[in-house]
C-alpha cells in the first residue's frame, strides 16, 4: 500500500526551533518530491506561513470545525507528504484530540505514516509531556529533535531513548541570515557554488538526516 508521511513538528515550549525544522522539512520534501502540503498551527510564534506561503495553509484546532478541516485532510492517503508546524499553545489540545479520535490507529489502517518530531528542551513541561507522547505514539514514529541551539548538548536522557535527530547550532550571523523571510534552504544549496561553506554543509547534513528518516519509514512500511 502507498504510504503518505505526515510530519508533526512539535514542542510544548515556544522558540525552540519548530518553525525552523518545519521549514527545513518542507523544503526538503519540496526538493525531493516536487510537492508538499504544510499546515501552520503556530500563529502565535514566527510562522511557517510567513516563510513558505505558497505551500502553507493555516489551521486551527480550537474548535471542532477547525479540527475536522485539518484532520480530515491528514487522514487521506493521497501520496502527498504533509508537514505540520504545531505551536506550543496547541500542543496539548492536538494530542488530546488525536488520542480521543484514534488518529494513530486509523492512520496505520489507511497507510498514513505519522511521524512526530518532538523538539526536546530541558524544562519541566517538556519532561511532563514526553511520556504522554510515548504512550500514544509508536516508538518508530516518535523522533526527538536534539536542537543544539536550544539544549546546548544537554538533551535530557529521557528523550534520548528512542530515535534522535540532531540539528547543529548555527553561528549567530548565519542564524540571522537563515531567519530572513526571503531565505530558502534549497535555493541556497542550488545557488551557492561553494559547497564547503558552513551553511551549505549544515543544510545538506539536515537533508541527509531527513532522507534517512524517510528511508526508515519506507523500510517499516515494506
Amino acid at each position, binding site marked *: 500500500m502507498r504510504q503518505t508521511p505526515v510530519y508533526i513538528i512539535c514542542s510544548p515550549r515556544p522558540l525552540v526551533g519548530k518553525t525552523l525544522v518545519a521549514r527545513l522539512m518542507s523544503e526538503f520534501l519540496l526538493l525531493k518530491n516536487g510537492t508538499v502540503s504544510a499546515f501552520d498551527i503556530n500563529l502565535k510564534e514566527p510562522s511557517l506561513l510567513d516563510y513558505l506561503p505558497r505551500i502553507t495553509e493555516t489551521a486551527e484546532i480550537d474548535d*471542532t*470545525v477547525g479540527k*475536522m478541516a485539518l*484532520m*480530515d485532510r491528514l487522514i487521506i492517503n493521497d501520496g502527498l507528504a504533509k508537514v505540520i508546524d504545531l505551536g506550543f499553545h496547541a500542543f496539548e489540545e492536538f494530542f488530546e484530540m488525536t488520542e480521543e*479520535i*484514534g*488518529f494513530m490507529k*486509523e492512520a496505520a489502517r489507511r497507510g498514513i505514516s505519522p511521524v512526530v518530531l518532538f523538539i526536546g528542551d530541558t524544562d519541566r513541561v517538556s519532561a511532563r509531556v514526553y511520556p504522554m507522547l510515548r504512550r500514544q505514539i509508536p516508538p518508530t514514529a516518535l523522533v526527538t529533535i536534539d536542537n543544539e541551539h536550544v539544549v546546548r548538548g544537554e538533551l535530557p536522557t529521557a528523550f534520548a531513548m528512542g530515535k534522535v535527530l540532531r540539528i547543529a547550532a548555527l553561528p549567530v550571523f548565519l542564524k540571522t541570515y537563515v531567519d530572513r523571510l526571503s531565505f530558502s534552504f534549497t535555493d541556497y544549496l542550488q545557488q551557492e557554488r561553494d559547497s564547503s561553506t558552513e551553511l551549505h554543509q549544515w543544510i545538506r547534513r539536515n537533508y541527509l538526516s531527513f532522507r534517512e528518516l524517510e528511508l526508515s519509514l519506507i523500510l517499516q512500511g515494506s
Partner: protein
Amino acid sequence: MAKPAVIVVGADKGGVGKTTVSRTVLDYFSANNVPTRAFDTESPRGTLKRFHPDITEIVDMTTTSDQMKIFDTLNAVSPSVTVIDVRAGLLSPALASLRDIGFLDAAKSGQITFAVFHILGPSIASLDEIAETASFMIGAKYFLVKNFINDTQFFQWDQATYNSYFHRIKDATELTIPKLNEMAYEQVEVASVPFLKFVANKGLSDEAANYSFVLRGYVRHWLANVWSEFDRIKLTDLVGSGKPATRGGEK
C-alpha cells in the same frame, strides 16, 4: 428459550435524552449479537424509528391494542429482548399500566426480566420523579441514568438531596452517559443512522458513507465509554445473553 427481557427507557421530563440512551442500548445489543426489538412510543412519528427502522415499531402505549402488541408477544417472538422508548411524561402512567396488567407481578416472580432506565434531567423535578417511580420498582432492575450528553453543567441539585432519593430504592444502580461533542451529535442526527453505523462510516443500508473522520472518532470514543457503563452493569447478563462478545464498534 431465554426468559423474555423488557427494558423501559423513560423519564417524565422531555428533552433529557431518552431516545439517545435507547439508541446506545440498541447499538450495544446489536454489537453483542443480542436479537432485539424496539418500540417507540412517540406516536405517530417516532425518533427511535428513524435511527433503527428495521427493528422498531411505533406504538401508542396508552391504547390497549398496542399494549397487547408489546406484552402479549413477549414469549411468542424470537428476539427475547424488548426495548421500549417511553415518550416524555408517560413513564409513570406506563409503569402504572404495567402494574395493572400484572406485568410487574410477573417480573417480581421471575417470569420476565424487567429493567428500567430512568433518565434524569437537571431539575429538581427529576428527584420527585425518582420517588414516584420507586413505588413500581419491586422486582425490576432500576437504573438511574445521569445523561450528560447535551450539557456539561447538568446536575444542579444538591448531591445530598439526590442521595436521599437514590437510597430510597433498593438495588438502584447509577449510570453515567458522558458528553458527546456537539457537532458529532448533530452529524449523527443529520445522517439518521445508528451510532454504530456512523462510526463504521456506513449509511442506513450499509452503503459507504463519507462522514468526518474526526467526528467518527469522537463518536467511537464516546460510544466506547457508554458501553463500558453497560458492561459495568452486565447488561448482556441481565437480559440472559451471557458475556459481551467481540464488538465491531470498538475496533
